[in-house]
């Protein structure tokens, strides 16, 4: 299975997420962070909380990947990075947009591996950039399951 390089640069429709305190607490509980038990009204968000923006904000990653010919269960997460540009508070409405930054192959232990770089950029309700997220995924299939 190959991903068509023509999809490079593809931009998906924007989505919104309203930052909720209860969701922050649920996330902290799920990662076993003791801060969950002693949370103020406007708790700082855990560093990887943006996953919630995407998955609960209506970005259907599964459908987005399918659009470019990738099945989500054939995906391995290779790299993940964040640039924190400004604080995000409970009550903020963040708008995110997903873009396919790059599609390329790279040699791995089991032959050529196919990589897709995804970038997610978020602004807040004032239009201020608050977060930039980059994920590199490996599309399994052509190299055979390990």
């Amino acid at each position: 299975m190959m991903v068509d390089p023509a999809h490079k640069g593809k931009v998906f429709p924007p989505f919104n997420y309203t930052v909720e305190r209860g969701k922050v607490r649920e996330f902290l509980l799920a990662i076993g962070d003791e801060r969950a038990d002693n949370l103020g009204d406007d708790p700082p968000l855990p560093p990887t909380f943006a996953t919630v923006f995407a998955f609960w904000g209506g970005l259907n990653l599964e459908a987005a990947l399918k659009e470019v010919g990738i099945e989500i269960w054939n995906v391995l997460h290779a790299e993940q990075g964040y640039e924190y540009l400004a604080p995000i508070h409970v009550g903020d409405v963040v708008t995110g947009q997903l873009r396919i930054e790059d599609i390329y192959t790279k040699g791995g232990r089991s032959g050529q591996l196919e990589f897709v770089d995804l970038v997610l950029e978020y602004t807040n309700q004032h239009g201020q950039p608050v977060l930039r997220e980059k994920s590199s995924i490996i599309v399994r299939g052509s190299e055979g399951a390990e």
Partner: protein
Amino acid sequence: MTLYFEDVHEGDELPALTKGPLTPIQMVRYAGASGDFNPIHTVPDMAKMVGLDGIIAHGMLIMAYAGQLVTRWAGEGALRQFKVRFSGMTKPGETVVCRGTVTQKIEGGTEALVRGKLTVKGQEDDSLKLKGEFTVALPRRGAP
């Protein structure tokens, strides 16, 4: 307790953080909290269908542990950059250990920055789960 820029030195180690043992319920819980319902993390038959022995933890759950390592040390809201490369899968039953080291102090910009690197490894077999880099902004002693 606030961590100040002046208190940090290159080569300093962050207090290690041990997490686990991981349980399938925790993966279900993380799936619900994050909204990442990729079935290879929760449905054993689905994991086997794609050639795995069984369910594996979300890489992002392990990255969340690494994030916790940094925020426990530097304070909430200190992170400016955080990046990891996933190396190995983590299975139910495993306990992982997060470790970090300060690599560089950067002055002169608008913020006093500290860079570091980190790893998360299996406690039992020392297998690498991920390695990464982070940059935090720390307050200066005596600054308003």
